[in-house]
């Protein structure tokens, strides 16, 4: 049944792509206007509307900053927003719309399953697209796409950050890693384990616990008792916040006192509510930095203008990666010297030295993933707020 639906989807998208190709051919010629049009595909409506709105605002701010300093190739940048409604079906339509507007390149989108169909359409139309909130490993690793990039990190990038932090900063000798069997959490946990291998080989640390709990359950006392018996120095949980809150409190009840580090899905306000502030305070989390905690020169300009225009800064890390997407594209267009997808994609892969985004340098791997995605260690303060503890 699933396969059928997928086939249906494929036929649908192919049909749309064919239509678009016809439209493109009939119009003919590249855009020769006074501006360079770049599309932003984002969830302006639907479940993630909040994220989409913030992405739109972030890109607007970045556009203003870029245009103020002269734009690119002597032209001003113009943003065309297409709404993917937070779902894969509308995403294909949105991508089609972006293609028909003859944009130079695309930023988008948020959410891996939403980005995937759009990325295929952009690929077929030879249009460079830069995802900003789609972290699934499969997007770049399952299928080779020539024109797809992303400014956000992959699900597994934070595992690497954890490994380094636990051993080098905390000096943990006995490390416990726990996931919840979901693709995302297991991916992060596996990557953390991999990141620890060189340290284990050097005799600096060992993994004393590596196991899963079942999501949606409430009682993890058996798991935390087993965990306590392994006497870990640090405990990394890569799953989601409802389980994280329950786990931490049950662990403290069972007498396990070691530092708790959650993955980027483990800690939020609800985590603090479920665990209780007495237990939650001091809990650590590996996360993409919020823009408030980024201090690059561009970030300072970005924050000032954003605050002036929209009062409050983006409350999630992702919208800023959309702005990074624009900086990356503008940088690549400048390096390529022309509006040509092949040249832009080539520049994205090989010529990005010196191109800076809001969160720092925007360099890409051969597969289109961003290199050296910045991560930070956050901590739950005594008031239940998240504060940065490490760079």
């Amino acid at each position, binding site marked *: 049944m699933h396969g059928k639906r997928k086939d249906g989807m494929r036929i649908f998208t192919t049909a749309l792509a064919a239509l678009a190709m016809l439209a493109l051919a009939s119009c003919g010629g590249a855009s020769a206007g006074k501006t360079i049009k770049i599309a932003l595909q984002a969830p302006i409506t639907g479940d993630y509307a909040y994220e989409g709105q913030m992405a739109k605002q972030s890109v607007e701010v970045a556009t203003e900053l870029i245009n103020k300093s002269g734009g690119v190739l002597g032209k001003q940048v113009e943003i065309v927003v297409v709404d993917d409604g937070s779902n894969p079906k509308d995403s294909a339509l949105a991508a089609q719309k972006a293609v028909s507007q003859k944009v130079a390149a695309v930023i988008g989108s948020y959410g891996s399953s939403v980005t995937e169909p759009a990325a295929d359409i952009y690929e077929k139309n030879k249009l460079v697209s830069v995802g900003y909130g789609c972290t699934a490993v499969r997007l770049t690793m399952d299928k080779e796409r020539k024109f797809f990039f992303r400014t956000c990190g992959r699900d597994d990038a934070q595992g690497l950050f954890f490994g380094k932090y636990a051993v080098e900063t905390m000096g943990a000798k006995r490390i416990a890693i726990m996931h919840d069997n979901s693709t995302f959490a297991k991916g992060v946990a596996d990557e953390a384990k991999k990141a620890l291998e060189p340290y284990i080989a050097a005799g600096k640390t060992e993994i004393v616990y590596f196991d899963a709990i*079942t999501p949606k359950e409430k009682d993890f006392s058996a798991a935390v008792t087993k965990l306590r018996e392994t006497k870990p120095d640090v405990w990394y949980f890569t799953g989601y916040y*409802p389980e994280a809150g329950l786990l931490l409190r049950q662990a403290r009840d069972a007498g396990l006192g070691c530092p708790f580090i959650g993955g980027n899905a483990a800690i939020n306000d609800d985590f603090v509510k479920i665990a209780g502030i007495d237990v939650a305070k001091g809990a650590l989390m590996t996360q993409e930095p919020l823009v408030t905690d980024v201090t690059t020169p561009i970030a300072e300009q970005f924050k000032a203008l954003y605050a002036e225009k929209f009062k409050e800064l983006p409350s999630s890390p992702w919208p800023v990666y959309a702005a990074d997407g624009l900086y990356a594209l503008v940088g690549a267009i400048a390096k390529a010297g022309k509006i040509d997808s092949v040249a832009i994609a080539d520049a994205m892969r090989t010529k990005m030295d010196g191109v800076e985004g809001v969160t720092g340098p925007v360099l890409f791997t051969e597969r289109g993933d961003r290199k050296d995605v910045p991560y930070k260690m956050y901590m739950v303060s005594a008031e239940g707020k998240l504060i940065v503890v490490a760079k």
Partner: protein
Amino acid sequence: MSTFIEQLVNGLTIGSFYALVALGYSMVYGVMKLINFAHGDLFAFGAYLGYTILTSAAGKVTASIGIWGGMAFTAGIVAICVAIAGVLVERIAYRPVYPSGRLSLVVSALGVAIFIQNSIMAIWGSRPQAFPASVVPSLRFSLLGIPVTALQVTILGISFALMFAIWVIVEKSTFGAAIRASALDRETATLLGIDVRKVIFFVFALGPGLGGVAGLMNGLYYRAISFNMGWNYGLKAFTATILGGIGNIPGAMIGGLLLGIVESLLSGYVSGAWKDVFVFLLLIATLIFRPTGILGEKTAEKV
């Protein structure tokens, strides 16, 4: 050794929740020969009702009459409301389709389960809710070298008391005899002058009422509740019911406690990732080798 005992206690706590939910399953199955899929969601409904009472203006009432009085008051309201919901489910969704056979009943039960779960989501939202931390103080102490919380001991005590009360009602009282008679043979029970409708009414009030209180205790104990929590507990309690012998009241209790202990030992000594694989293997093995369950002799009598 003390870790082993600790894992047993952990298992008993999980198991007592399974057992309380399993009782409702088993009673309904005994009388109606229906797996009441909505039961798990009524359990979740109880948790949410309790949450609303404790966080709303009524929470102030309960706070003013002390923790025990407040809890009893909350549990009473939850039990009554969920019992009414249980009876309504039977009237609206089961009684009209009863003559069309068991398949229609099961489909109707699934429909009710989805209806209740989505209603909870529509009313209280899809994000998990947390019970106020101030309601029950977190008192930790060591009992014979095993770290336990005061709440854990209280919950265990209350569940065992409730299970014992149900056992007395069903096995020792005259009305219990009527329930058992209806479970054995509905038509003969009617011929003997037992008002089976009254029995059904009672079973659909008592089972969900008890499930609702279990939901409230679950919320108090784990503090976090989610709209879809009923499904998981329903599934595990159903497994417990099969293990103990479906339609058999003491069987449901034993099945629930046993399942909790097996789960806890599996994740404590084998692997948390593989726990559910073994649990459901146990369910399949029971169905193949001993379909009547551990204490299933009573259902065999009627053949």
